[in-house]
């Protein structure tokens, strides 16, 4: 049970990653490699500020802003200097590796002592539940774990609603239209380059926020923690789309969150079964490849099966 709760908590936290990837990959059709750097950047900035005794809320927000700036830099490199989007992301990701090391001062920052979002949640949990364990559906669950899960779930719900509302505003709609048809949005007098910069900033801000929360939950920030994160985010988005469809942005956002949680649960179960943790990234990559290719392949088969039209 505690394994389940842990997986769900990480799932909620990393749904910020999924939302960020949804924004860049699905709305803009942009494979944004910056993601792998910004999740670490968010974790690094948040962790180092926490170590320095800064208020957890401010530390987490600072990580988010740092990620947004990194995303904007990628957007500017891509739109103003005409560099291919994938390469722009790789450039910033590579640069961030050094920057992250500078921010942290070493390759790993532990967060053992001091206040952070997890300890706040635990304190809150003690106040609400009043005991060390809580009975959930017949299982005794540590009230600390449960309260962290609940706080994570509530925060992510709030952020998802904010994101949904933003995407329904005039600006947010212009943002979605840019990814859909840049020609159209230019014809309505919007600078499509600015929209891409803004979109990548928001996307990477969300990712960095996820990184900051993850660092606080797992108790450390590590310079390697971003590797493979883009593909993990993609996997979550794809699972979410399979679960709820892509009809509306509301569904897509809920889907990304659900996808992230389900993905984490699947990972937890797989590890429990004895899958070698070293193989996780390989399996995820194959899964994303299959998820992207198989639907088109099936479509082709269906067409071949039908008699040719005269």
């Amino acid at each position, binding site marked *: 049970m505690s394994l389940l709760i842990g997986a769900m908590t990480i799932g909620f936290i990393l749904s910020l990653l999924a939302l960020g990837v949804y924004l860049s990959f699905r709305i803009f059709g942009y494979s944004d490699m910056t993601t792998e750097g910004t999740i670490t950047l968010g974790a690094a900035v948040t962790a180092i500020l926490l170590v320095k005794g800064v208020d957890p809320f401010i530390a987490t927000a600072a990580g988010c802003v740092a990620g947004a700036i990194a995303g904007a830099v990628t957007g500017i490199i891509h739109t103003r200097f005409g560099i291919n989007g994938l390469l722009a992301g790789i450039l910033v990701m590579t640069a961030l590796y050094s920057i992250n090391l500078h921010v942290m001062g070493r390759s790993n920052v532990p967060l053992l002592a001091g206040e952070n979002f997890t300890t706040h949640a635990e304190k809150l949990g003690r106040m609400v539940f009043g005991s060390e364990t809580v009975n959930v559906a017949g299982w005794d669950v540590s009230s600390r774990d449960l309260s962290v899960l609940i706080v994570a779930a509530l925060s992510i719900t709030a952020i998802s609603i904010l994101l949904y509302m933003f995407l329904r505003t*005039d600006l947010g709609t212009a943002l979605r239209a840019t990814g859909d048809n840049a020609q159209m949005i230019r*014809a309505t007098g919007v600078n499509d380059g600015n929209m891409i910069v803004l979109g990548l900033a928001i996307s990477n801000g969300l990712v960095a926020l996820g990184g900051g929360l993850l660092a606080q939950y797992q108790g450390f920030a590590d310079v390697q923690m971003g590797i493979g994160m883009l593909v993990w985010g993609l996997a979550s988005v794809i699972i979410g789309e399979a679960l709820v469809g892509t009809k509306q942005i509301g569904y897509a956002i809920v889907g990304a969150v659900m996808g992230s949680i389900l993905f984490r649960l699947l990972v937890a179960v797989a590890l429990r079964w004895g899958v070698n943790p070293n193989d996780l990234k390989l399996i995820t990559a194959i899964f994303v490849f299959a998820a992207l290719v198989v639907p088109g392949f099936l479509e082709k088969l269906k067409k071949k099966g039908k008699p040719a039209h005269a």
Partner: protein
Amino acid sequence: MLEIRNIWKTFYAGTPNEVRSLQGVNLSIEDGSFVIVIGTNGSGKSTLLNSVAGTFFVDDGTLHLDGKDITKWQEYQRAPMIGRVFQNPFSGTSPNLTIGENIALASRRGMSRSLGWVRDKKLTQQIRERVGRLNMGLENRLEDPIGTLSGGQRQALTLMMATWVKPKLLLLDEHTAALDPKSADQVIKLSEEEISREKLTSLMVTHSMQQAVNLGDRLIMMHRGRVLHDIRGAEKQRLRPEDLLQRFEDIRRADRLDESAAEMLKRAYV
């Protein structure tokens, strides 16, 4: 209203694929006039419209719209003054956004984008009313993605979006070429109504001789990146499709003459 002075545009300059699309075009369009542009394939009609819209910068020459020098303005900077309907019905609308959202975006063409809702009740009501006037049964489908509509419906909506904020100049680039005859008629009718009601200064490219003679108060014929004929006033009113075909035939004959003359010179001297 629109002042085009000696504009030149060459694509792929210095390569074997070099295309000299515009070779010194001069054109002056008065306020409220409706100009039809026709021409042979590759004569520079669409290039002319795109250079006015700002899809690219011209190599030489200047463009003035409403007294402002827009030669170096980006496409999105010109958009507040220019409404456009494209040849491709997919170009003018955002397929995954709903009908309502598309029109709402266009209703603030050229204004800064805010954090207010994209549509309030009043705007939704206006949209429903104007979409209803199209008689396409779309007023109850405002929440459907626009990508689910037919090409004709999308062009009709693109036209509405292009003119929702009254443009200084309306550009129609063969906007019925990709439609079936019935939809094409419908969209042409809508365009004509909108242009005459709002007295829009318009520039319309077409391949249809019928449209070219029936519509507009002035016609220019382009060939090889230049304006070859400029027909207006009573002469434009009298114009018949046969006259236009005759002029195309003349061009063809002149071209062939050029070619055979070149061939002759080559044989004699090379």
